[in-house]
């Protein structure tokens, strides 16, 4: 099981902040996001700006994740 977390606008679009994804093979982060877009088409407009993190570290689209990993997607940050 891959744990997916969404924040801010992405959470609002999906209507949830946590999603679980079954997988029996390593998935690139790009593919995880594509599966999310299929379920929540409104997320598509974030595909160029979305920030990605695996296990609380920023990462890129090519990074592969496996069961037990936590993958987070969020808009560019605006704290401070």
């Amino acid at each position: 099981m891959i744990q997916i977390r969404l924040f801010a606008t992405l959470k609002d679009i999906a209507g949830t902040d946590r999603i679980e994804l079954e997988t029996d093979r390593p998935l690139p982060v790009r593919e995880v996001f594509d599966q999310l877009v299929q379920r929540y088409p409104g997320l598509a407009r974030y595909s160029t700006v979305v920030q990605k993190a695996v296990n609380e570290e920023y990462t890129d689209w090519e990074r592969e994740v496996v069961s037990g990993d936590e993958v987070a997607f969020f808009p560019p940050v605006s704290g401070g």
Partner: protein
Amino acid sequence: MVALVTEEIRPRELIQQIKVPEAGALVTFDGIVRNHARGRRVRYLEYEAYGSMAEREMEKIRTEALSRWPLTGLLIVHRVGRLEIGESSVFIAVSAAHRGDAFDACRYTIDTLKQTVPIWKKEHYDDGEVWIEGYGA
């Protein structure tokens, strides 16, 4: 020390930690909730964080600043939840033997925090609310 908090930030208690006898300069930064933004009147703000990652990223900034400049202390506190106009959303304090290092490190810390720490703010207006998105948007 770095922290995410939900209560009011109490700066003067915090800075006693870094006002060590070797410090000759203390520079602080408060980010304050303004009553206007993007041409609209703001009623209040809400901050949301990816909490555990936000603390990791703040700690990375702290470690990097401590390695780049000869400092005697650096602390970062970010508040989350609902904040009213005039309240501090973030407080950074840096002490050093010399003021140039304290100024440079404080500015580096807030500039980097705004680019890397996973926290988002939502502006609430009289007639609606908007999630603010950062530089990449």
